[in-house]
């Protein structure tokens, strides 16, 4: 356990320091959401209706932005070789890395949501609903995205490939995330149904993500 704790602590430390990129995701999220009212126009009713979808799209793109560094940085400086050779199972290591990445880059998105909700004319209930769905859904984005990050690690310019690989996998999360938020705001569906499916998607990604990522890292090493 000390090994995984050390890894999580290191990754969060690096992300929070200069050039780490934890805040870049939040800034990107902020930029996307701030631009939306300018593009759509000052129609408050329309903004309220589109708000949850905009927040979810922004969060999805922002989480994708920093994901390519998840394994790439360790691959470039040779750390990945030592991680693969270590006595800690690679699956657990991958899960720990994804957790650290989510804590450093995913959680700030959830925290920023209430502020950004104001810009989209969302009331307190709606904002809380979106924040809650993001809290349940962004781990799924990180853990499925990790598979793409592991596949792209040995390819140069893998970042572009990552988006192509990961975005289709994140469609279900997006659908049920937005559906749950809309259900809380306008109905007529109950919030519980899509939200449960969203949680289930996250749980499935916790299981599949680390195994798939570890397998592709083992095959991709060269």
């Amino acid at each position, binding site marked *: 356990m000390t090994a995984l704790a050390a890894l999580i*602590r290191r990754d969060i430390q690096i992300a929070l*320091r200069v050039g780490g990129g934890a805040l870049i995701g939040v800034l990107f999220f902020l930029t996307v959401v701030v631009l939306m009212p300018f593009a759509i126009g000052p129609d408050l009713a329309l903004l309220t209706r589109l708000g949850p979808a905009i927040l979810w799209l922004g969060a999805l793109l922002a989480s994708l932005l920093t994901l390519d560094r998840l394994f790439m940085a360790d691959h470039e*400086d040779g750390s990945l070789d030592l991680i*693969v050779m270590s*006595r*800690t199972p690679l699956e657990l290591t991958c899960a720990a890395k994804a957790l650290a990445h989510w804590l450093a880059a995913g959680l700030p998105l959830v925290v920023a949501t209430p502020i950004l909700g104001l810009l989209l004319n969302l009331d307190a209930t709606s904002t809380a609903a979106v924040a809650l769905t993001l809290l349940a859904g962004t781990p799924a984005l990180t853990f499925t995205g990790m598979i793409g990050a592991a596949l792209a690690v040995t390819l140069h310019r893998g970042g572009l490939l990552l988006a192509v690989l990961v975005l289709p996998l994140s469609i279900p999360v997006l659908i049920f995330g937005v559906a749950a938020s809309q259900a809380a705001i306008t109905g007529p569906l109950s919030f519980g149904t899509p939200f449960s499916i969203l949680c289930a998607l996250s749980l499935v990604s916790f299981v599949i993500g680390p195994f798939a990522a570890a397998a592709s890292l083992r095959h991709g090493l060269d």
Partner: protein
Amino acid sequence: MRLSGRGVRCVRSGREVFSGLDFEASSGEAVAVTGPNGAGKTSLLRLIAGLLTMADGSIDLEGGEAELTLPEQAHYLGHRDALKPALSVMENLCFWRNFLGGAAFDAAESLAAVGLDHALRLPAAYLSAGQRRRLSIARLLAVRRPIWLLDEPTSALDAAGQSLFATLMNDHLSRGGLIVAATHTPLGLAARELRIGGTA
């Protein structure tokens, strides 16, 4: 403990690098892998470290810890130093010490042994190439592994650093360790030579 390879064949992206390679080393012995550039010295080390898959042949370890695989009992010191520029010297070493486990030596003492004890709080980004190499070598000391796989270990080291590292390697061998090193320059210790590739 005995490390041996039989008929090892290495193929990378469809091109055969070497084949039919035999080698062996016992506790307290060092093997110096030599050969021209591109002969496959690094590939051999990465095969032993389990970072490449063998096309043919076998590499076995006898007398190691039965529960652990060969890579889990080995240190790999490659071209890349596995250091994070954002972290300090001490943080870099402490991370590997905690992550690799089985710590044998205090982190501060390991840094003192490689002459980096004056720079504990310095971010690794500010280290010179030689200092980065010294910090990587401190990792070999801070975590005990019986097998050291070294790829050009003395590159970027100054003369004092090279003789210091020779002493550290001799200490490791006298404790019953085993070293496989790819090198172009003499390591400063009695080593069996394993030549790969042509007679350049």
